[in-house]
């Protein structure tokens, strides 16, 4: 095993990684099946050791925070991605009594804690008013040609997230092949868009298709920067998907191409949304 320290990770961050139990391996750091690596402007934690859920697009069973399942053909894994700009943040709060934990340390602790699908018991979300004050006016609205989507901020004692509907309802008579195409669209988006999670959220009267950014458990001193960076990506993702998703869900539009399922029947997930 090559234990040479990766040269794209700063010495300070390597010290922190070692303190959390990570060991250098090739261009990455590893700790009990969790891999840390830097890829361009992003830092990624990956979990390869778990069995993927039968239906990864079911948001109701998704883990907290930014963890999400991706499967780009190499191997299905859970990932937690953060931009390096967030990890390099220097926080100076003149009113803080104690010194703030550096952003890298705090984010690593957040990711590792939530990897166990739990949030620190003493974590409290920032106040809703404060989070709302961070969001520039109009940034929760995405207008895309003939469609408009309004994002929703959810802040309660155990959640802090922003979500946008991609589709508000899923027609009950949507043909299976169309549903598969829709799932394929979401899988591709899940693999491609950093931090944003896509999937189906069950509710009582419909099955909306959703894109969300989940900051649950995040260290308070990085949430504002994370929200603004993430919201920008989330808006672009919604903008990119809405028209295609609407087309796929519109049963009045006939297309022979869309009557053919994009995945072979043997690999299709069993569970329906």
């Amino acid at each position, binding site marked *: 095993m090559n234990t040479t320290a990766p040269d794209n990770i700063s010495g300070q961050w390597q010290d922190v990684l070692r303190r959390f139990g990570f060991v250098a391996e090739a261009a990455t750091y590893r700790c009990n099946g969790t891999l840390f690596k830097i890829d361009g402007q992003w830092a990624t934690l990956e979990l390869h050791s778990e069995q993927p859920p039968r239906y990864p697009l079911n948001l109701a069973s998704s883990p907290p925070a930014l963890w999400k399942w991706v499967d780009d053909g190499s191997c299905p894994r859970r990932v937690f991605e953060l931009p390096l700009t967030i990890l390099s943040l220097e926080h100076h709060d003149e009113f803080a009594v104690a010194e703030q934990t550096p952003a890298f340390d705090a984010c690593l602790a957040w990711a590792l804690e939530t990897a166990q699908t739990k949030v620190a018991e003493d974590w409290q979300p920032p106040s809703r008013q404060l989070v709302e004050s961070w969001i520039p006016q109009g940034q929760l609205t995405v207008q895309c040609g003939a469609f408009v989507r309004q994002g*929703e901020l959810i802040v309660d004692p155990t959640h802090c997230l922003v979500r946008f509907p991609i589709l508000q309802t899923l027609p009950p008579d949507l043909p299976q092949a169309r549903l598969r195409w829709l799932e394929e669209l979401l899988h591709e988006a899940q693999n491609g868009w950093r931090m944003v999670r896509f999937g189906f959220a069950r509710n009582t009267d419909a099955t909306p298709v959703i894109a969300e950014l989940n900051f649950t458990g995040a260290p308070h001193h990085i949430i504002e920067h994370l929200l603004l960076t993430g919201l920008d990506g989330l808006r672009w993702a919604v903008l990119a998907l809405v028209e295609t998703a609407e087309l796929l869900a519109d049963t009045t539009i006939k297309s022979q191409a869309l009557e053919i399922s994009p995945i072979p029947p043997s690999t299709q997930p069993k569970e329906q949304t």
Partner: protein
Amino acid sequence: MSMMTAEAPHANGTSRKEPFEFDVVDVTGMNTALVTDVQRTAPAGAVAKTLAARMELPQNVPWALRSDETAAYLDDSRAIGDQIETGSRVVLTPKSHLGMR
């Protein structure tokens, strides 16, 4: 931890999950549509722009919505569901200031 969250009722007391639909007619009366896919929480200004695109009206004109019942213009920045009830009828109108100085 469950990801399911209880949604707060909307400002006008209705649930965000209750169906919300309204009729829209353009100012000429030539185009009409039943709108069923707009969220209550969407700002009226963005909804007006969306409906103008849907009715293939010019996109280089600012559009506003006017309540057919009260004749009042809807506030662009406020949620449409706070300003009209489900089943209402609104008129899509270009914002113009004609001849006034």
